[in-house]
């Protein structure tokens, strides 16, 4: 295993990777994937990529081109320092100033957080991925080069373009799950510092992963969705989904669009519409069966709940949140309900709470909570025996650790899954592990980033999934269901199941929560969950 010898290596060994992890460095997975020699390899980064972009480890997330001249190198350092300075002003960063100052001032460097990090742990404890590695470098740069404090007090670090570029790359080796922050005895938040580094890169230097910015929030604000769906296309797709769902369930549904005065504006992650159409279909089926007054909106950005700004850019975040709220204001709904998407939950409900004021301050509610209320209301009859297969639940970090929505999803499962078929992962709830796709990783796969993601960020969740089903036959003809009520988590879990061929080899399947409800609806035809790999 290659790993950095010290913090100061960040400025040294120019053009060389500071860390490389191979499957041999990792703890084997549980059966039937316990043979390290049978693990798919992490494909190496191409020579062309190494030559063109800044190199941190054996993958690339951001694509920071190597400066061609000394002047460009200095400009990169200056821009970073300029952004770093702005982070500590009320004007430019009131949004996170206090949490930032707290995490910069009070770290005792005790390393208590390290073992909480699934990436550090699954890397074989590679120093580069220790949560404090990037935080301490940021801290030292700030105190030495912005505050001009003595390195004897805050530690020394060299600053060159490579330090800057690698630190930005390193901020994209963190899922922002904040499990480390949860364990800090003082309250220091390394995930927050990762995000603040991302903000300097995006808001000051114009540097961000293409998937998050150009193909993400920019596209969403321009055409309506990061999937590229325009209002016309999304309506067409939903119409098709309604028809398909009706065919599968025998229950006719028609998703209402732009209904002025409806009680509820439902916003899905548009990824569901594209990749998991059964999810919006199931929502429509349940909402109609419960007799709710609801609508979807065809306004720009309002039919896609995603808000990638939550991962890298406060301004892009605010723009998308305002679009969501403005659509709800236009329709005059009583509340916005967010579908099965964790980061959209946190973005619009919690973070945007101190951005939206006046007539944009429209109440937001979790779709999971509404589904729980529908179950409680007794308006829909469920036959639990239709879900007679092993089920486990993945807790999306944004929804659980960062919002405290823990019990409703369990109450739903308890109502639609037979006793004894559901089992909890260890740990779960607010102590859960990230799926590995958090902070945008689920949609990032440039170069060999997907390999790196599966081996490092997604491995702990895959390990948990395998562990929780160890008492079941691990074969294809004994299907097991991983319930992931979050679009990004679902994408990551789909990817890692595919990577290890775990559906064919172990019968591990995945899906959302509302699908389990429709699968158990007495009024629906059996077999909504079709166990067909998509």
């Amino acid at each position, binding site marked *: 295993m290659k790993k950095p010898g*010290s913090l100061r290596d960040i400025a040294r060994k120019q053009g060389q990777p500071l860390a490389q992890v191979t499957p041999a460095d990792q703890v084997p997975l549980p059966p039937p994937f316990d043979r390290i020699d049978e693990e798919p390899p992490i494909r190496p980064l191409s020579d062309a990529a190494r030559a063109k972009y800044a190199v941190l480890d054996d993958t690339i997330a951001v694509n920071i081109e190597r400066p061609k001249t000394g002047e460009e190198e200095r400009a990169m350092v200056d821009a970073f320092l300029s952004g770093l300075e702005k982070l500590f002003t009320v004007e430019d960063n009131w949004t996170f100033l206090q949490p930032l100052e707290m995490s910069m001032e009070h770290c005792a460097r005790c390393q208590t957080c390290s073992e909480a990090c699934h990436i550090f742990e699954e890397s074989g404890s590679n120093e580069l991925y220790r949560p404090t590695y990037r935080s301490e470098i940021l801290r030292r740069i700030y105190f030495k080069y912005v505050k001009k404090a003595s390195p004897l007090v805050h530690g020394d670090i060299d600053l060159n373009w490579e330090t800057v570029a690698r630190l930005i790359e390193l901020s994209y080796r963190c899922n922002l799950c904040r499990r480390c922050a949860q364990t800090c005895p003082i309250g220091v938040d390394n995930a927050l510092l990762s995000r603040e580094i991302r903000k300097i890169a995006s808001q000051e230097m114009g540097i961000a992963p293409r998937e998050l910015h150009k193909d993400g929030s920019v596209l969403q604000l321009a055409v309506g969705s990061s999937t590229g769906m325009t209002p016309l296309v999304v309506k067409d797709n939903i119409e098709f989904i309604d028809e398909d769902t009706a065919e599968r369930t025998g229950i006719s549904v028609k998703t209402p669009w732009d209904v002025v005065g409806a009680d509820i504006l439902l916003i899905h992650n548009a990824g569901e519409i594209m990749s998991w159409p059964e999810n919006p279909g199931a929502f429509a089926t349940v909402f109609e069966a419960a007799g709710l007054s609801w609508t979807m909106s065809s306004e720009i950005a309002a039919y896609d709940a995603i808000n990638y700004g939550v991962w890298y850019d406060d301004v892009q975040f605010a*723009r998308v949140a305002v679009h969501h709220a403005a659509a709800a204001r236009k329709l005059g709904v009583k509340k916005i309900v967010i579908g099965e998407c964790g980061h959209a939950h946190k973005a619009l409900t919690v*973070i945007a709470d101190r951005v939206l004021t006046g007539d944009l301050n429209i109440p937001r509610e979790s779709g999971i909570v509404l589904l729980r209320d529908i179950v409680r209301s007794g308006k829909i009859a469920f036959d639990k025996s239709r879900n007679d297969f092993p089920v486990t639940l993945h807790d999306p970090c944004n929804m659980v650790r960062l919002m405290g929505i823990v019990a409703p999803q369990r109450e739903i499962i308890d109502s639609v899954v037979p006793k004894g078929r559901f089992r909890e992962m260890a740990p779960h709830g607010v102590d859960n592990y990230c799926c590995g796709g958090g902070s945008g990783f689920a949609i990032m796969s440039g170069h060999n980033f997907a390999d790196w993601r599966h081996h490092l960020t997604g491995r702990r969740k895959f390990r948990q999934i395998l562990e929780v089903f160890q008492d079941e036959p691990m074969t294809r003809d004994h299907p097991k269901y991983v319930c992931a009520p979050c679009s990004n988590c679902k994408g990551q879990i789909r990817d890692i199941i595919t990577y290890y061929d775990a559906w064919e080899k172990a019968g591990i399947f995945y899906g959302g929560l509302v699908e389990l409800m429709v699968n158990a609806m007495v009024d629906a035809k059996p077999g909504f969950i079709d166990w067909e790999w998509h």
Partner: protein
Amino acid sequence: MTILTYLVAYCGTAILIVAVAIRILMWSRMPMHVRWELYPVAHEGAKASYGGSYLEESEWWTKPRHFSLWGELSAMVPEILFLVALKEHNPKLWSRSFPFHFGLYLVAGCTILMAVAGVLGAWLPGVMAGPVGTVIRALIPVIGHAGLVLGLVGAAGLLQRRRQRPLRDYSAPMDTVNLVFFVAAFSLALVTAVTVDRRFAAVSELVSNLVTFNVAPLSGAGAQVVMPSASAILLAMLAAYIPLTHMSHFVGKYFAYHAIRWADEPNLRGGKQEKVIEDLLNQPVSWSAPHIRGDGTKTWLDVATEDPER
């Protein structure tokens, strides 16, 4: 020596109080930030046991919020006294950090007891002559010795741990100096307490003189005066030094929990937060990236409602 002792003790106490007050003011006057809570949130009452929140309730904005002070206290008090988070997540470090912190609490408690005894002795001598005084005088050396032993053992343990990897790799030279300072101050105080001031009579006399502003020489001679005075000087310097460093986390931690981790107060329409938020949205933005082009005159409200890349 007498003047120097009193001067350093008064200055040290003053710096401690002023520096802590400044820290408290700094943290409490920081602008409102966006919500960034982390669950469990202790004041959620029964829901806190599994990390749940009011967001689990449908139409939560129409319902009264339950705030459990008992929940906060039952999380905070064990955390402050016994460092339960560290015990759970880093037991090796806890075995050093707990005695260190608890020793500090006991030394602080002992100092407060000596101050109380001094005040009572000056203004209510009858109380100090009675059973209350007897109890206080008996407690002072017990708490003092225990505090110094625990503090020294903890500080030495933390110093040893700080010199090992990985902590060493992430530490600045001053992190080591800080712990050496603690070891030196506690060692001298302990040696003093064990050799020349077993009943804490000399240091009690000094504290009593301090709180009654009686700048008088200590009773006795030689080591009986020099060692308690030197200990007091070193401890006073340490007390003044702590809040000037990142060791002031005892102040920051309160805000880390109450202003960030547990700060789940929702912004209800027409509520008290909206005006503050509207003011913040009018702050000028100077971020330079092409999709923002903050020029220092555009506000957050402006940039949130425009898109220069469209």
